[in-house]
Structure formats: C-alpha cells, structure tokens
C-alpha cells in the first residue's frame, strides 16, 4: 500500500488528519479515509510528514479533535486544508496563569 498523498484520522470525530506521505505541497490534493468513504482535501499550505491538516473549516475557539479527543482549540479561524499546528492551535492545558 502506498502512502502517496495520504493522510489519516484515528477517530471519526477527528477534524484534523495526519499526513503519512513524505510532505505535500500547497495546491495538491490529499486523500483521507473517513469510515467507508474517501475524502479529498485541497492543501492550503506546504505540510511535512506527520503534521496535521484541517478536514473542514474550524472557527476560532472551537476544539481540535484527534484520537476522538480534544488536543487544543483553534487560536484563530482555520480553513479546510490548512496546516494545523502551534501557529493556529492553543493548548487547553498546562497554561501559565495570568499575573
């Protein structure tokens, strides 16, 4: 099985998919298997192996789901196909208290 242009989800609740291919260019199409159907996502950024992309538009403040669990929240609006990482996601845990 080839991993070219492939990203995976771990739970159907996930709104991000992890790239299994060796990096993908902006404008290329990523294939993500969600249950029975294969979804196509157009890449809005250059993204490396093991990094995540948004499966649909995510509004600022909405939770990011991976493993079917919350891994953080959108720090700003994230568009479908965007790289999802520290530049647009905040942790919900381990935050310093405002002083």
């Amino acid at each position, binding site marked *: *099985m080839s*991993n070219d242009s492939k990203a*995976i989800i*771990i739970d159907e609740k996930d709104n991000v998919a*992890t790239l*299994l291919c060796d990096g993908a260019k902006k404008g290329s199409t990523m294939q993500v298997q969600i249950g029975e159907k294969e979804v196509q996502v157009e890449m809005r950024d250059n993204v*490396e*192996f*093991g*990094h*995540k992309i948004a499966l649909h538009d995510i509004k600022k403040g909405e939770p*990011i789901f*991976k*493993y079917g*669990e*919350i*891994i*953080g929240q959108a720090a700003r609006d994230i568009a479908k196909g965007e790289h*999802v*990482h*520290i530049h647009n*996601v*905040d*942790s*919900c*845990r*381990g*935050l*310093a*208290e405002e*002083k």
Partner: protein
Amino acid sequence: MELTGYQRSNGQVGFRNYVAILPSVGCANDIVNGLGHLYPNVLVLNHRQGCGQLGIDKEQSARTLAGLGKNPNIGAVLVVGLGCESITANYLANEIAKTGKRVEVLVAQNEGSNLNTLSKGNVILKDMIHEVSNMKRTPCDLNSLTLGIKCGLTDTTSGLSSNPATGVAADRIIEAGGTVVFGETPEVIGAEHILGKRAVSEEVKQRLCHYVELCEKRVKDSGVDIRGANPAPGNIKGGITSIEEKSLGAIKKAGSKPLQDVLAYGEVPEGKGLFFMDGPGRTPEALTGLNATGAQIIVFSTGGGSPAGTRISPVIKVTGNSRTAEVRKDHIDVSVEGIIKGEMNLQQAGERIFQEIIEVASGKMSKAEVFGYGSLSVWNLGVHM
C-alpha cells in the same frame, strides 16, 4: 526462545549481572571514578544528590538511590560515602542489603586519606567481581520480569505506531504474570480521563489525578506555558502540537491492562501487573526512576530516534518512523515502520517487540547498551541548600 536470568536469593531475577559502585553523595563521585578506572566493567553510578536537600527531595533521593542499588540486574554493590553527607552510605547499604545481595560500605573520612579509601575499595571490588562472575544464567519465568516503558523524542508516528505496538508487548508481559511500569506525569495531562478509567479502584484513580494536578500546578506556578518544555522543540518539529496531543499518544505505550497502583518516583511496586510512576518526561530522570523501581529491561518508543539508554537496565529502542529507522539505525533496535506503511499490524509489531525483550533479557545487548549510553539523573523538585 528461552528466557534466562540470574536467580537472586530473594526470589528476584537479574537479566544482567553487574557489580556497581554507588556514591551516597555527589561529593564522592571522584572517589568512585577513581575506583572505576581500575575496573572498567563495573557500573559507576555517579549522581549529584545525597546532601543539602530538604524534606521531600531528600526522601526522593534516598528512595531512588536505594532503588538503584536494589535493582536485580546488580549482583553486588559497593556504597561509597564521604562521611559528612545527609544520605549516609550506611543507610543506603542497609536498604540495599534487604534484597540479600552482597553490599559493602566505604566511608572516605573513616579511612583517613583518599589513597587509603581507593586502596581499600579496590580490594573489595576485586573480591566482589570474582564472586559475582561465578553466578550463572538459568531458565526463568516471565513473571520475574519488570518491564519499564518510556517514550521520548516523540513525533506523530509514536502515538500511531511505536507506542501502541509497545502497549501490545506490555499486555503480553502482564498476561504472563509480569510487571510493567510506565511514567511521565506531564504526558498524562489531557489523557487522565482515559487512563483513570483503567484504575483498579477509585483510590488509585484519585492518586493518578493528584499527581497530574500537582504537575500542572507546577507549570502554572512557574508563570510560563508548558509548550516549548513539553512538547519539546523536537516534538513540535515532529508534528506534535500540544501536551494533550502528546499525552493521548503517550498513554498508548501502557497497553490496555488495569492500572494496579500509582507509585512515587523511584518507588518499587508491590505485586504484579501495570503500574504508573510519578515523574517528569525528561529522559534521564524518567529512565533513572524506572531503574529504581526495579525494571530490569526498558522499552523506549521513539519517533525521532533518541539515543538514550541506562547502565543498569538495557534499553530497547523502538521506532515507527521509517526515516528514523534508516538514518538512526545505529541506535534503533526494533523498527515497526511497517505499521504506517500498512505492511504490519499492531499485533505483529507488538510480537516483534516482545521477542526482542526476551532476547535482550536473555543476554543480547541492546544498541544503547553497546554504546554504554546512560547518565544517571535523579529527579528533584527543590533547591540544594
């Protein structure tokens, strides 16, 4: 393959057969180094602790240092003190001697000069090495194994492949009557609701949550966010975005068995099955804590390919990242890259790791062991006075 080890007088089994020199205080490290020069095969367990510590840190250092000496992979121990420290050589020797192994004490200030100490220590060690070298490997049961589990230099392949595959191997050890200890409290933040469900009692669940809360409180009190420290820059480069994401992948290395109890850092578990040990995710402290729990073998799941090891317990490095498996093959023992390529399922990968555990326990050297990788670092929270 048959599992073989060194039967100890207290019923435990060593999978290595070392003589160790343990300073009771960091100020005796140079004496211990001097002794180690003459006997290159002896484990020199240098550390920074043993004096000037307050309350909980002093207890934690004492418990951990005693635990290192008690590890069944060590056949005999020479404890070396300076004579003016708070964690005394006699205290550690008495604790270690409860295992029934040979323990000798050398206190520099009782011997007069350093030269006297070195000369006396050298005679003791020569004798110990002879005695321990005569112990033989014999077939033994898997229930004698305590497996330590750690993940480090995590990337997103860890949570998808090498961690769950390690969990399959952990389950097999427990099904065979063995013990598994894993830790890294920061890497339960955001996953405590999942791990907590596996606790055998409400009390154990509360203890787990207590340690996680304490850990998160330390971050909050520090005034800075956890990101950057954990996930570390290497994790972020590997695609890990938040501590929650790291934790959800990290707990998969502990398999699926019930959580029997939650241990303090370096505490020896009572009973068999799965145990969680409080402590940091940072590799040297996490591995040293596992050494002190009595883990004879450690499986280390690593996306990016950490070189880490310990001198006391062989560390088996597992990766699910094909690039790491290729580029860092010098220090990767098992590649489960086939999971992400779709060429291997988790059960098959777990079986590979399990077989490697049996082989390494029975004498095959792990790669970190070949390199002699493994500085000790005892975890402490407070200041030195």
